[in-house]
Protein backbone atom coordinates (compact mmCIF):
# COMPACT_ATOMS: atom_id res chain seq x y z
CA UNK A 1 0.00 0.00 0.00
CA UNK A 2 2.73 2.49 0.95
CA UNK A 3 4.54 1.60 -2.30
CA UNK A 4 1.43 2.57 -4.23
CA UNK A 5 1.24 5.88 -2.35
CA UNK A 6 4.88 6.55 -3.14
CA UNK A 7 3.95 6.53 -6.83
CA UNK A 8 1.79 9.58 -6.17
CA UNK A 9 4.76 11.68 -5.01
CA UNK A 10 5.65 13.03 -8.49
CA UNK A 11 2.01 13.95 -9.13
CA UNK A 12 1.77 15.82 -5.84
CA UNK A 13 5.05 17.63 -6.53
CA UNK A 14 3.81 18.57 -9.99
CA UNK A 15 0.50 19.87 -8.64
CA UNK A 16 2.30 21.96 -6.01
CA UNK A 17 4.63 23.45 -8.60
CA UNK A 18 1.72 24.14 -10.98
CA UNK A 19 -0.23 26.01 -8.28
CA UNK A 20 2.88 28.01 -7.32
CA UNK A 21 3.65 29.00 -10.90
CA UNK A 22 -0.01 29.71 -11.72
CA UNK A 23 -0.19 32.18 -8.85
CA UNK A 24 2.94 33.83 -10.19
CA UNK A 25 1.19 34.43 -13.52
CA UNK A 26 -1.40 36.65 -11.87
CA UNK A 27 0.95 38.31 -9.42
CA UNK A 28 1.54 41.97 -10.27
CA UNK A 29 4.98 43.01 -9.01
CA UNK A 30 4.18 46.67 -9.67
CA UNK A 31 1.67 46.76 -6.81
CA UNK A 32 4.13 45.66 -4.11
CA UNK A 33 4.21 47.35 -0.73
CA UNK A 34 6.32 50.44 -0.18
CA UNK A 35 9.46 50.07 1.93
CA UNK A 36 8.39 53.21 3.78
CA UNK A 37 5.23 51.92 5.47
CA UNK A 38 5.49 52.61 9.20
CA UNK A 39 8.41 54.98 8.71
CA UNK A 40 8.63 58.72 9.02
CA UNK A 41 7.97 60.81 5.91
CA UNK A 42 11.41 61.72 4.46
CA UNK A 43 12.82 65.16 5.20
CA UNK A 44 12.57 67.73 2.42
CA UNK A 45 12.73 71.43 1.70
CA UNK A 46 10.86 72.38 -1.46
CA UNK A 47 9.20 75.44 -2.94
CA UNK A 48 5.58 75.31 -4.06
CA UNK A 49 4.30 75.16 -7.62
CA UNK A 50 2.43 78.43 -7.07
CA UNK A 51 5.32 80.42 -5.58
CA UNK A 52 9.09 79.79 -5.89
CA UNK A 53 9.65 81.88 -2.74
CA UNK A 54 7.46 79.81 -0.43
CA UNK A 55 9.31 76.80 0.95
CA UNK A 56 8.00 73.93 3.02
CA UNK A 57 9.59 71.14 5.02
CA UNK A 58 8.22 68.00 6.68
CA UNK A 59 6.48 70.09 9.36
CA UNK A 60 3.86 70.72 6.65
CA UNK A 61 2.52 67.23 7.41
CA UNK A 62 2.41 67.54 11.20
CA UNK A 63 -0.88 67.46 13.06
CA UNK A 64 -3.19 66.42 10.24
CA UNK A 65 -3.84 63.16 8.39
CA UNK A 66 -2.73 63.93 4.84
CA UNK A 67 -2.77 62.14 1.51
CA UNK A 68 0.43 62.98 -0.36
CA UNK A 69 -0.01 62.49 -4.10
CA UNK A 70 3.00 62.35 -6.42
CA UNK A 71 1.98 63.50 -9.89
CA UNK A 72 3.14 65.28 -13.03
CA UNK A 73 1.43 67.03 -15.90
CA UNK A 74 3.33 64.67 -18.26
CA UNK A 75 1.61 61.65 -16.75
CA UNK A 76 -1.67 60.55 -18.40
CA UNK A 77 -2.64 58.29 -15.48
CA UNK A 78 -2.47 61.32 -13.18
CA UNK A 79 -5.08 63.02 -15.35
CA UNK A 80 -7.27 59.93 -14.96
CA UNK A 81 -7.28 60.07 -11.16
CA UNK A 82 -7.97 63.80 -10.81
CA UNK A 83 -11.78 63.41 -10.41
CA UNK A 84 -11.14 61.01 -7.51
CA UNK A 85 -8.71 63.45 -5.89
CA UNK A 86 -11.26 66.25 -6.29
CA UNK A 87 -13.88 64.05 -4.62
CA UNK A 88 -11.51 63.26 -1.73
CA UNK A 89 -10.81 66.98 -1.21
CA UNK A 90 -14.54 67.71 -1.25
CA UNK A 91 -15.02 65.14 1.50
CA UNK A 92 -12.54 67.01 3.63
CA UNK A 93 -9.37 64.92 3.08
CA UNK A 94 -6.27 67.09 3.16
CA UNK A 95 -4.20 66.59 0.01
CA UNK A 96 -0.62 67.65 -0.56
CA UNK A 97 0.73 67.31 -4.09
CA UNK A 98 4.30 66.58 -5.12
CA UNK A 99 4.73 67.83 -8.68
CA UNK A 100 7.33 65.32 -9.83
CA UNK A 101 9.86 66.05 -12.62
CA UNK A 102 7.64 68.71 -14.10
CA UNK A 103 7.74 72.37 -15.11
CA UNK A 104 5.76 75.10 -13.34
CA UNK A 105 4.05 76.10 -16.61
CA UNK A 106 2.81 72.60 -17.43
CA UNK A 107 1.73 71.99 -13.83
CA UNK A 108 -0.21 75.26 -13.59
CA UNK A 109 -1.98 74.57 -16.87
CA UNK A 110 -2.84 71.05 -15.69
CA UNK A 111 -4.38 72.38 -12.47
CA UNK A 112 -6.25 75.15 -14.30
CA UNK A 113 -7.94 72.67 -16.63
CA UNK A 114 -8.60 69.77 -14.26
CA UNK A 115 -9.08 71.56 -10.96
CA UNK A 116 -6.82 71.85 -7.94
CA UNK A 117 -7.64 69.57 -5.00
CA UNK A 118 -4.32 70.22 -3.25
CA UNK A 119 -3.90 72.29 -0.10
CA UNK A 120 -0.24 72.71 -1.06
CA UNK A 121 1.64 71.60 -4.15
CA UNK A 122 5.35 70.98 -3.64
CA UNK A 123 7.52 71.51 -6.71
CA UNK A 124 10.03 68.69 -7.17
CA UNK A 125 11.57 69.19 -10.65
CA UNK A 126 14.61 66.95 -9.98
CA UNK A 127 12.57 64.22 -8.35
CA UNK A 128 14.61 64.32 -5.12
CA UNK A 129 11.64 63.93 -2.76
CA UNK A 130 10.21 61.37 -5.19
CA UNK A 131 13.46 59.40 -4.95
CA UNK A 132 13.45 59.49 -1.14
CA UNK A 133 9.85 58.24 -1.24
CA UNK A 134 10.91 55.37 -3.49
CA UNK A 135 8.62 56.58 -6.28
CA UNK A 136 9.29 54.71 -9.52
CA UNK A 137 6.36 55.95 -11.59
CA UNK A 138 3.70 58.57 -11.02
CA UNK A 139 1.05 58.60 -9.79
CA UNK A 140 1.75 57.26 -6.33
CA UNK A 141 -0.04 58.24 -3.12
CA UNK A 142 1.03 58.04 0.51
CA UNK A 143 -1.25 58.41 3.50
CA UNK A 144 0.59 60.15 6.32
CA UNK A 145 -0.77 60.18 9.87
CA UNK A 146 -0.72 63.11 12.32
CA UNK A 147 2.76 62.22 13.55
CA UNK A 148 4.17 62.24 10.01
CA UNK A 149 4.36 58.43 9.73
CA UNK A 150 3.53 56.84 6.35
CA UNK A 151 0.63 54.43 6.86
CA UNK A 152 -0.53 53.44 3.40
CA UNK A 153 0.81 53.48 -0.14
CA UNK A 154 -1.06 53.29 -3.43
CA UNK A 155 0.66 52.86 -6.82
CA UNK A 156 -1.08 53.88 -10.02
CA UNK A 157 -4.32 55.79 -10.49
CA UNK A 158 -6.74 56.04 -7.57
CA UNK A 159 -10.02 54.63 -8.87
CA UNK A 160 -13.49 55.41 -7.46
CA UNK A 161 -13.59 52.04 -5.67
CA UNK A 162 -10.18 52.75 -4.07
CA UNK A 163 -11.59 55.97 -2.62
CA UNK A 164 -14.51 54.19 -0.95
CA UNK A 165 -12.86 50.93 0.05
CA UNK A 166 -9.29 51.87 0.89
CA UNK A 167 -8.60 55.54 1.31
CA UNK A 168 -11.59 57.00 3.17
CA UNK A 169 -11.72 54.18 5.77
CA UNK A 170 -8.00 54.58 6.43
CA UNK A 171 -8.19 58.36 6.69
CA UNK A 172 -10.97 57.88 9.27
CA UNK A 173 -9.00 55.26 11.15
CA UNK A 174 -5.88 57.40 11.50
CA UNK A 175 -7.94 60.44 12.44
CA UNK A 176 -9.55 58.48 15.28
CA UNK A 177 -6.26 57.01 16.40
Amino acid at each position, binding site marked *: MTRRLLLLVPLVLFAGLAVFLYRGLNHDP*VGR*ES*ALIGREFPAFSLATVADPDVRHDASLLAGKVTLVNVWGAWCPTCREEMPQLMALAEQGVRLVGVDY*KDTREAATEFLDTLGDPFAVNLFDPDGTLG*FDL*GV*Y*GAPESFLVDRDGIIRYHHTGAIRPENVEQEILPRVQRWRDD
Partner: protein
Amino acid sequence: MARRLIRTVLLAGLLTALLGVAAAATIEVRDFDDPQLARRYTTLTHQLRCPKCQNETIAASASPIAADMRERVAAMLEAGRSDREIQDFLVQRFGEYVLYRPRLSPRTWLLWGGPFLLVGLGGVILAWRVRRRTAPRALDAAERRRLDALLDREDRS
Protein backbone atom coordinates in the same frame (compact mmCIF):
# COMPACT_ATOMS: atom_id res chain seq x y z
CA MET B 1 34.25 23.25 -46.53
CA ALA B 2 36.18 26.51 -46.83
CA ARG B 3 33.06 28.36 -47.94
CA ARG B 4 31.16 27.11 -44.96
CA LEU B 5 33.93 28.26 -42.64
CA ILE B 6 33.96 31.74 -44.17
CA ARG B 7 30.19 31.97 -43.86
CA THR B 8 30.29 30.98 -40.19
CA VAL B 9 33.02 33.49 -39.40
CA LEU B 10 31.13 36.29 -41.18
CA LEU B 11 27.90 35.48 -39.35
CA ALA B 12 29.65 35.40 -35.99
CA GLY B 13 31.26 38.76 -36.73
CA LEU B 14 27.92 40.30 -37.65
CA LEU B 15 26.25 39.03 -34.48
CA THR B 16 29.07 40.36 -32.31
CA ALA B 17 28.80 43.78 -33.96
CA LEU B 18 25.02 43.84 -33.36
CA LEU B 19 25.51 42.91 -29.71
CA GLY B 20 27.93 45.80 -29.31
CA VAL B 21 25.37 48.25 -30.73
CA ALA B 22 22.63 46.98 -28.41
CA ALA B 23 24.83 47.25 -25.32
CA ALA B 24 26.04 50.75 -26.17
CA ALA B 25 22.52 52.02 -26.79
CA THR B 26 21.23 51.49 -23.25
CA ILE B 27 23.74 53.04 -20.87
CA GLU B 28 25.36 56.44 -20.76
CA VAL B 29 29.13 56.62 -20.53
CA ARG B 30 30.35 57.37 -17.04
CA ASP B 31 33.93 58.31 -16.30
CA PHE B 32 35.62 57.59 -13.00
CA ASP B 33 39.12 58.83 -12.26
CA ASP B 34 39.72 55.72 -10.21
CA PRO B 35 39.45 52.42 -12.13
CA GLN B 36 38.60 50.72 -8.82
CA LEU B 37 35.45 52.89 -8.56
CA ALA B 38 34.52 52.10 -12.16
CA ARG B 39 34.74 48.38 -11.38
CA ARG B 40 32.59 48.74 -8.24
CA TYR B 41 30.09 50.84 -10.21
CA THR B 42 29.76 48.11 -12.84
CA THR B 43 29.33 45.37 -10.23
CA LEU B 44 26.82 47.34 -8.16
CA THR B 45 24.64 48.46 -11.06
CA HIS B 46 24.53 44.90 -12.37
CA GLN B 47 23.33 43.58 -9.00
CA LEU B 48 20.60 46.16 -8.49
CA ARG B 49 17.17 45.65 -9.94
CA CYS B 50 15.18 48.40 -11.60
CA PRO B 51 12.00 48.95 -9.51
CA LYS B 52 10.00 49.99 -12.56
CA CYS B 53 10.91 47.36 -15.10
CA GLN B 54 10.90 44.18 -13.02
CA ASN B 55 13.39 42.04 -14.89
CA GLU B 56 16.19 44.42 -15.73
CA THR B 57 19.21 45.56 -13.79
CA ILE B 58 19.57 49.29 -13.34
CA ALA B 59 22.66 48.95 -15.53
CA ALA B 60 20.58 47.73 -18.47
CA SER B 61 17.34 49.62 -18.01
CA ALA B 62 16.45 52.69 -20.04
CA SER B 63 13.72 53.83 -17.60
CA PRO B 64 14.17 57.26 -15.94
CA ILE B 65 14.17 55.83 -12.41
CA ALA B 66 17.05 53.49 -13.32
CA ALA B 67 18.99 56.49 -14.64
CA ASP B 68 18.34 58.33 -11.36
CA MET B 69 19.56 55.31 -9.41
CA ARG B 70 22.74 54.99 -11.50
CA GLU B 71 23.32 58.69 -10.88
CA ARG B 72 22.97 58.17 -7.10
CA VAL B 73 25.24 55.10 -7.11
CA ALA B 74 27.95 57.02 -8.99
CA ALA B 75 27.64 60.08 -6.72
CA MET B 76 27.84 57.95 -3.56
CA LEU B 77 30.84 56.02 -4.88
CA GLU B 78 32.63 59.31 -5.58
CA ALA B 79 31.74 60.44 -2.06
CA GLY B 80 33.56 57.41 -0.68
CA ARG B 81 30.56 55.43 0.56
CA SER B 82 30.83 51.65 0.86
CA ASP B 83 28.91 49.19 -1.34
CA ARG B 84 26.88 48.17 1.69
CA GLU B 85 25.94 51.77 2.46
CA ILE B 86 24.83 52.35 -1.13
CA GLN B 87 22.71 49.18 -1.11
CA ASP B 88 21.18 50.13 2.25
CA PHE B 89 20.37 53.58 0.92
CA LEU B 90 18.46 52.14 -2.03
CA VAL B 91 16.77 49.36 -0.03
CA GLN B 92 15.46 51.95 2.45
CA ARG B 93 13.66 53.68 -0.40
CA PHE B 94 12.74 50.96 -2.85
CA GLY B 95 12.70 47.87 -0.64
CA GLU B 96 14.60 44.56 -0.76
CA TYR B 97 13.09 44.18 -4.21
CA VAL B 98 16.03 46.08 -5.73
CA LEU B 99 18.59 43.50 -4.58
CA TYR B 100 19.19 40.82 -7.20
CA ARG B 101 21.24 39.01 -4.56
CA PRO B 102 18.86 38.88 -1.59
CA ARG B 103 20.49 39.16 1.81
CA LEU B 104 20.61 36.27 4.22
CA SER B 105 17.73 36.87 6.66
CA PRO B 106 15.03 34.69 8.24
CA ARG B 107 12.84 35.52 5.24
CA THR B 108 15.42 34.26 2.75
CA TRP B 109 16.78 31.22 4.63
CA LEU B 110 14.66 28.88 2.54
CA LEU B 111 15.73 30.64 -0.65
CA TRP B 112 19.45 30.33 0.08
CA GLY B 113 19.28 27.01 1.93
CA GLY B 114 16.63 25.34 -0.26
CA PRO B 115 19.00 23.96 -2.91
CA PHE B 116 21.34 22.49 -0.27
CA LEU B 117 18.34 21.05 1.56
CA LEU B 118 17.13 19.37 -1.63
CA VAL B 119 20.57 17.99 -2.50
CA GLY B 120 20.87 16.66 1.07
CA LEU B 121 17.44 15.07 0.86
CA GLY B 122 18.32 13.51 -2.49
CA GLY B 123 21.53 12.15 -1.00
CA VAL B 124 19.68 10.58 1.93
CA ILE B 125 17.13 8.93 -0.36
CA LEU B 126 19.89 7.67 -2.67
CA ALA B 127 21.94 6.27 0.22
CA TRP B 128 18.87 4.56 1.64
CA ARG B 129 17.98 2.93 -1.68
CA VAL B 130 21.53 1.82 -2.47
CA ARG B 131 21.97 0.33 0.99
CA ARG B 132 18.72 -1.57 0.69
CA ARG B 133 19.65 -2.95 -2.70
CA THR B 134 23.18 -4.18 -1.91
CA ALA B 135 22.89 -5.56 1.60
CA PRO B 136 22.56 -9.38 1.20
CA ARG B 137 20.40 -11.12 3.74
CA ALA B 138 20.78 -14.66 4.93
CA LEU B 139 17.84 -16.93 4.08
CA ASP B 140 15.76 -18.06 6.97
CA ALA B 141 14.94 -21.71 7.55
CA ALA B 142 11.66 -21.71 5.60
CA GLU B 143 13.25 -20.01 2.62
CA ARG B 144 16.17 -22.43 2.64
CA ARG B 145 13.80 -25.44 2.61
CA ARG B 146 11.92 -23.92 -0.34
CA LEU B 147 15.17 -23.28 -2.18
CA ASP B 148 16.33 -26.85 -1.60
CA ALA B 149 13.02 -28.14 -2.87
CA LEU B 150 13.25 -26.07 -6.02
CA LEU B 151 16.84 -27.09 -6.72
CA ASP B 152 15.92 -30.70 -6.05
CA ARG B 153 13.13 -30.61 -8.62
CA GLU B 154 15.46 -29.01 -11.13
CA ASP B 155 18.03 -31.77 -10.70
CA ARG B 156 15.51 -34.51 -11.25
CA SER B 157 14.00 -33.14 -14.45
